């Protein structure tokens, strides 16, 4: 859809296609080089892919051990009791197992996908009505396969940088960002934080956005 309007897409895109390290096509060297700088988040994504592709219970066990205590913490901080939080975590973990076939590592790291599932479930429960969620994008399976490896690596690189940026912030700023994403802030407070504390990591989020934007565009064009 975008490629039919060449001028428009050039104007919108700060870099021409092909200048992204992870998007140079099916270049194996990129993937190999990047998989050498493995990180924790990368492992989580591999576990989730193993759950999806092989119904791997050991990999699910690792996801469970990593995410359950953090999801519980997040839900409690956004206002739920311990018991209610565990009920939501149960639903989230079982949704991960049952809907793993919908997971697409070219568009989300494991933690991002799980974060979304947790929010959806938490809000369904709190409001007692389904949370409005965007329609799924309809993408041909083939175009998905050719993109996964490179795109997943490039998302991982962005996430590593984002985590480093967060870790080096003064504690007060880091706290506000944590509180915003954990769900402790109101919409008005998030707006204010977006102008102030978030300013320092905004550029990192925007770089991640560039990658995701390209990924969606590539998927649409195939």
């Amino acid at each position: 859809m975008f490629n039919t309007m060449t001028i428009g897409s050039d104007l919108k895109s700060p870099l021409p296609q092909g200048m992204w390290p992870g998007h140079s096509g099916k270049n194996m060297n990129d993937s190999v080089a990047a998989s050498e700088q493995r990180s924790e988040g990368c492992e989580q994504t591999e576990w989730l892919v193993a759950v999806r592709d092989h119904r791997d219970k050991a990999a699910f066990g690792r996801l469970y051990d990593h995410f359950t205590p953090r999801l519980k913490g997040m839900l409690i901080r956004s206002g739920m009791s311990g018991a209610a939080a565990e009920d939501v975590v149960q639903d989230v973990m079982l949704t991960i197992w049952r809907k793993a076939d919908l997971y697409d590592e070219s568009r989300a790291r494991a933690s991002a996908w799980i974060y979304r599932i947790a929010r959806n479930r938490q809000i369904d429960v709190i409001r007692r009505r389904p949370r409005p969620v965007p329609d799924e994008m309809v993408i041909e399976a083939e175009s998905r396969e050719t993109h996964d490896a490179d795109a997943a690596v490039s998302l991982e690189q962005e996430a590593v940088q984002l985590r480093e940026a967060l870790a080096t912030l003064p504690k007060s700023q880091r706290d506000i960002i944590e509180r915003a994403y954990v769900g402790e802030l109101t919409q008005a407070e998030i707006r204010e934080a977006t102008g102030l504390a978030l300013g320092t990591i905004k550029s990192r989020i925007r770089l991640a956005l560039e990658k995701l934007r390209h990924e969606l565009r590539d998927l649409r064009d195939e």
Partner: protein
Amino acid sequence: MKEITHHLPEWLVRSYAAGSLGHAFSLVVATHVSQCDECRARLEAEELAGGVVLETLEAVEASDDLRARVFDGLDEIVAPAPPAPQKAGIYPGALIAEMGSDTPRWRSLGGGIRQAILSADKEGSARLLYIPPGMAVPDHSHTGLELTLVLQGSFSDETGEYGVGDVEVAEDDLDHTPIAGMGEACICLAATSAPLKFNSLLPRLLQPIFRI
């Protein structure tokens, strides 16, 4: 099709991702993202950041009982969930899910203007509006935030022109008169955090009756 030029502001996408947005505004965000790849990418970037925060959060110990419940559930055979509603005509699936049907239940407001209230709670309300071509929406100002997403046709006001997929974000201080474009009737999804205040007498009298 005209490209979408009025997108969701960053803080609104972030608030949605974090679950801090009321139902009515969440509906506008979900409906717009269904139409707009740019904002879909923005939402995915926010979720990437949310995921990074989640994976580095301090752990809170979970009970053994929870572990048992989850692992017992793995082999359970569950009926597949019904498929999510699909886009029907001008209405994305997110909106179909909210309406519970493919067509809005319109109520006439007079002058050819129609509305269908979708939800109303203490945090805000969401409705569909149908404005005949060239017709003005009564001059109104706000107490709070108003989001208006175009689904069909177009409208314009003091702040610009809005076509299909565009979102107008109107703040407390905006006093505006949206006018539907010529051609097709303008159908839009509007969400407000508070009842609108109309600046002329008649609509103000009608307000309690029609919940405009």
